[in-house]
């Protein structure tokens, strides 16, 4: 039974309902702490259940549905926090009559970064040492996995991953002024 519905790619409603009952309350609390906003928490929780229906986690023996749900919920919360931070920033120095909704392009990118900020990200990326620059770019802009990157760099998979991480740490530091404009919450 459950095999057949997995093949269709959807989780059967009764299974998701079971998760809602079992994990809903703690996820709601977690999201409330993450976002500090009950409405946002509720919106994100609904997204989590939609993901659970559309791309259900493996719930066979040895799998960890709770961990999967926390991961999806936390990523969605971080994404929402990131968007809010940049939306506030974009609003500064803009026509005071403008509202967040009419400023946002119809399909704003994942991060909500504007073109000028994206150019700065590329610029800082261009300044990274060769291996870090290539590893970061190939991983995220070109979407390659670590083994493929390792092949391109002539390094081990482990070192490809380390180069991505080192590069990202440097990028976060060199772009600190972007994050620092955060408005007090």
């Amino acid at each position, binding site marked *: 039974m459950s095999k057949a519905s997995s093949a269709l790619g959807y989780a059967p409603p009764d299974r998701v309902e079971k998760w809602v009952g079992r994990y809903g309350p703690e996820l709601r609390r977690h999201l409330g702490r993450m976002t500090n906003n009950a409405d946002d928490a509720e919106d994100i929780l609904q997204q989590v259940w939609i993901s659970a229906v559309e791309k259900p986690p493996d719930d066979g023996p040895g799998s960890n549905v709770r*961990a999967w749900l926390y*991961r999806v919920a936390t990523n969605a919360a*971080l994404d929402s926090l990131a968007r809010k931070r940049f939306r506030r920033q974009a609003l500064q120095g803009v026509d005071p009559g403008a509202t967040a909704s009419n400023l946002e392009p119809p399909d704003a990118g994942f991060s*909500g970064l504007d073109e000028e900020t994206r150019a700065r990200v590329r610029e800082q*990326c*261009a300044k990274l040492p060769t291996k870090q620059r290539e590893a970061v770019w*190939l991983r995220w802009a070109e979407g390659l996995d670590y083994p493929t990157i390792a092949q391109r760099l002539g390094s081990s998979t482990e070192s490809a991953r380390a180069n991505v991480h080192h590069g990202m740490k440097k990028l976060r530091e060199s772009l600190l002024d972007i*994050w620092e404009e955060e408005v007090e919450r």
Partner: protein
Amino acid sequence: MTSGPCRVSEEQVLAFVTGDMDQNASLALAEHLGECRGCRDQATEYTSLLGGLQSCSAEEAVHWHRFETPFGMMNVAATGTGLSRLSWRQADPEAFVHHLGSLYPDRPAIHDAEGLAQTERQLHEYFAGERSRFELPVDLTRLSGFEREVLECVRTIPFGDVVPYSEVARRIGSPKAARAVGNALNHNPVAIVVPCHRVVRADGSLGGYGGGVRYKRRLLSLEGTPALFSD
């Protein structure tokens, strides 16, 4: 909420955001992010950074490669538009990559042998006398309108032929601009592929060449152009 020093490292926060963490560790970290404002802010920043990087496309980099040719090591680079750089007088790759960095401050330079395999193959064929025209898109967007016009015109000069500077000037409708044509050719970023070596002086002498006049002579003799040129 919680107080006291946070034991979670930046590396762990980053590994959570990039998805490079096993399930149990990532569950513990997710719970921690609900409690620790500092780590949550860091994770938010990494999420933005990740989103910014993921919103970039391969075309926004400058891809480069180098390979052996009869002229020595050939350095080539391409943007999403096409071949944008070709040079053979930069000895080490570091210098070439550094040069690309100054030309394109907001394009990360990425080594890409596969992406430039066509360019490499066509140049090998050309040097082997097996190719008389290049089928490669070029990116001349960094040039002025006039320079672009000159180079577009020069692209139409066929293999084995030569044309005087003054004739190029006439063809682009600026008959008095022969000297300016020479300057524009000197700015050709993709020599050989845009065959500026096929432009010579009206008296039959070679004229200048950005890559060195001896290479101009070699290219023309490779193309079987009658060797009536002296300096």
